[in-house]
């Protein structure tokens, strides 16, 4: 005993704390990560490809996924790591998953550890307090933006969107919280409504009854609350689906604006199987083009580069539908960025990061914009409201940082280098004529 005390005393003198391992924590980590925390062999490729490494200053402590997983394997709190853990920095972009030699679904590990962080005191200080506020907003208001549920349909006040009727509609359009409330994203939804109408699609929405899909709860690792949301929403969707589809009959598309909502319905709503067919709108519009129901006749001379939303691309394997749609528009020239499809860089808005602040010099969107600028395209297209928000921000920061150019111009500021547009907006431009060239975010449908 005296020897142990002596060693402990020496360690203390060197400011080194002995680590005491706790097996019960490992059991919890294993359960929360579906066993995947065990599969990590600590090669560090994940840390190497993580976009955080590209935005953090070389002097700052490295953002290391590998260290975090190692700490979890040992059942250590993340304060044991000199640089802390990237648990809440992770945008769940899955770029590391493409490289992992053991095929570890790192996102599942991260979400599992987040789930633990809500419950376990040895991790709990890791939960950013503002996330509880977002969850309360989902609970009381039915959306993660804390906006009144009674204003969910204000964006479409002048569009006369009918309530979904299974007898007369061939698709259920799930608008989603961001497209319903965010001023910029509303333009995407409005453009999509116009495109669907131009294609002659009879569709309806759930109006004010439309619930939150639960993407925020999912990305915060709140699996218990997500299960509640999924159960309640599944009941609602099944009620609204009308008569059960006959075996073999084509299912009604459940069409989403955001790939995040699509991902939720596709991956996390087992009770919707055989009731609706979740589909991202780019997939649906590409189908309409290929079925000859949607066609673009007028030329839209536009050089476009496409940013793959992580959740649509790496998350659900859909890289081609938005590209097929863009290429169906005469005059649109698609120029790829060097990092495209499975290699695409994240916008920085996934994994709950939409609700957490990121300093302007650490935003992935800034890097992504620089990659897009290299292509020479005038439009940076994407197909996700979060990506549009992050990339629009990047354009604004970039415009503000640009040096003086022509004489008489106000220090060269305020001139956007590229225009960020959602694919739905480009499709509507092709059908209706160019959008007014003012600020990003003005659709031909007008501002509500």
């Amino acid at each position: 005993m005296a020897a142990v005390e002596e060693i402990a005393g020496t360690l203390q003198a060197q400011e080194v704390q002995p680590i005491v391992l706790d097996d019960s924590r490992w059991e919890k980590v294993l359960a929360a990560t579906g066993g995947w925390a065990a599969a990590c062999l600590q090669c560090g490729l994940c840390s190497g490809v993580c976009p955080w490494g590209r935005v953090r200053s070389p002097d700052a402590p490295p953002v290391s996924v590998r260290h975090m997983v190692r700490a979890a394997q040992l059942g250590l709190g993340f304060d044991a790591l000199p640089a802390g853990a990237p648990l809440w920095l992770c945008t769940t972009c899955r770029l590391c998953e493409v490289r992992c030699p053991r095929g570890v679904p790192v996102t599942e590990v991260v979400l599992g550890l987040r789930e633990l962080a809500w419950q376990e005191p040895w991790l709990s200080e890791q939960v950013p307090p503002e996330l509880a506020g977002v969850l309360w907003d989902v609970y009381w208001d039915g959306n993660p933006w804390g906006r009144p549920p009674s204003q969910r349909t204000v964006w479409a006040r002048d569009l006369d969107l009918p309530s979904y009727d299974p007898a007369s509609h061939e698709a259920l359009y799930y608008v989603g919280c961001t497209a319903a409330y965010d001023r910029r994203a509303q333009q995407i939804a409005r453009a999509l409504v116009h495109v669907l109408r131009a294609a002659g699609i009879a569709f309806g929405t759930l109006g004010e009854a439309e619930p939150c899909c639960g993407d925020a709860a999912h990305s915060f690792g709140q699996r218990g609350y997500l299960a509640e949301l999924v159960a309640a929403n599944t009941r609602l969707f099944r009620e609204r689906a009308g008569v059960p589809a006959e075996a073999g009959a084509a299912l009604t598309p459940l069409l989403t604006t955001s790939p995040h909502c699509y991902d939720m319905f596709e991956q996390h709503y087992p009770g919707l199987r055989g009731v609706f067919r979740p589909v991202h709108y780019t997939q649906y519009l590409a189908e309409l083009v290929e079925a000859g129901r949607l066609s673009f006749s007028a030329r839209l001379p536009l050089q476009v580069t496409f940013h793959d939303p992580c959740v649509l691309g790496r998350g659900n394997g859909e890289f081609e539908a938005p590209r097929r749609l863009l290429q169906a528009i005469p005059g649109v020239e698609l120029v790829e960025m060097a990092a495209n499809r499975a290699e695409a860089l994240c916008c920085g808005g996934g994994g709950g990061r939409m609700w957490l602040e990121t300093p302007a010099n650490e935003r992935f969107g800034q890097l992504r914009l620089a990659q897009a600028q290299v292509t020479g395209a005038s439009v940076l297209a994407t197909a996700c409201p979060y990506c549009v928000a992050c990339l629009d921000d990047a354009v604004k920061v970039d415009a503000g940082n640009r040096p003086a150019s022509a004489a008489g111009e106000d220090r060269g500021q305020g001139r956007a280098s590229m225009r960020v547009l959602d694919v739905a907006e480009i499709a509507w431009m092709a059908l209706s004529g160019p959008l007014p060239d003012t600020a990003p975010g003005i659709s031909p449908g007008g501002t509500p």
Partner: protein
Amino acid sequence: MQRDQSPTPHGTRMPGAGHAAIGPLHIVVCIKAVPKPEEVRVNLETRTLDRGSARTEINPADQHALEMALALRDRYGGRVSLLSMGPPLFIPYLRVGLAMGADDAYLLSDRAFGGADTLATSYTLAKGVERIGRETGGYDLVLCGEESSDGATAQVPPGLAEWLGVPQAMYAGAVSLEAARSGAASNGRRLRVRREIKGGHEVLRLPLPAVLSVATGANVPRFFDPARRPWAAAAHVVVWDAAALAVDPTLVGTFGSATQVAAVEQAGRAERRRVVIRGTPAEEARALATVIRGVLGNGQAAPRSPS
């Protein structure tokens, strides 16, 4: 109760390890269900708020009070009881509080309580606090939100303290327990309350029991624990009527109210002008400055001192 106060073996900071000896605390938290402000309409005939069409939530300020109670219990041990006065439709909201971490819930519900102003409400709640105290071996602290979003008087917490005859501190920002040499009633401890005031803050020391209102913004209310939801959904909520509380019938409901609403009006909505200024940031700033100067010139936006 003897508690081990030695440091934990591997240095993990255990909540309240150094303070547990002066716990536990039995905290009663008053919560109320309110209509969502943006959905409320005013009934001009009855001079009341028309709640029928509005969605309901826990009064946001009360969630801060509950968070403070739960944090104090995490630190000192003890028990958190929820107390509300209202119709049975409040029960689901009490269950949300139980899922956040409260231990039990009480609802004071009787038609005779209807139409109460802040005087009658605080009297009725005081009777509820007293009975909770009698049945559970006493209460140490009553926490309220700073005000309700529908009434916005902030009168109930101090009224409650007066009816109970205990000290009060309003708009508390931070609360802790400390040892006190005197005051047998306080069990050798007292409250330390920090509250923001104009130009600074003050620290108050209060004997227990006491009534506090918690400043909105003092904390971030934790989200409920999904694992507690099934228990909370089935938990017994104690409902007491006027007879169970042995209230003085002249002090509750409309009879017990010292104020009457003489008139209410629905405020009109200001219509936005929808003027959009476009240009470079410098152009926009110049245009905006011109607009502001124009308004100031008309004397419409002269600065006013808050009355």
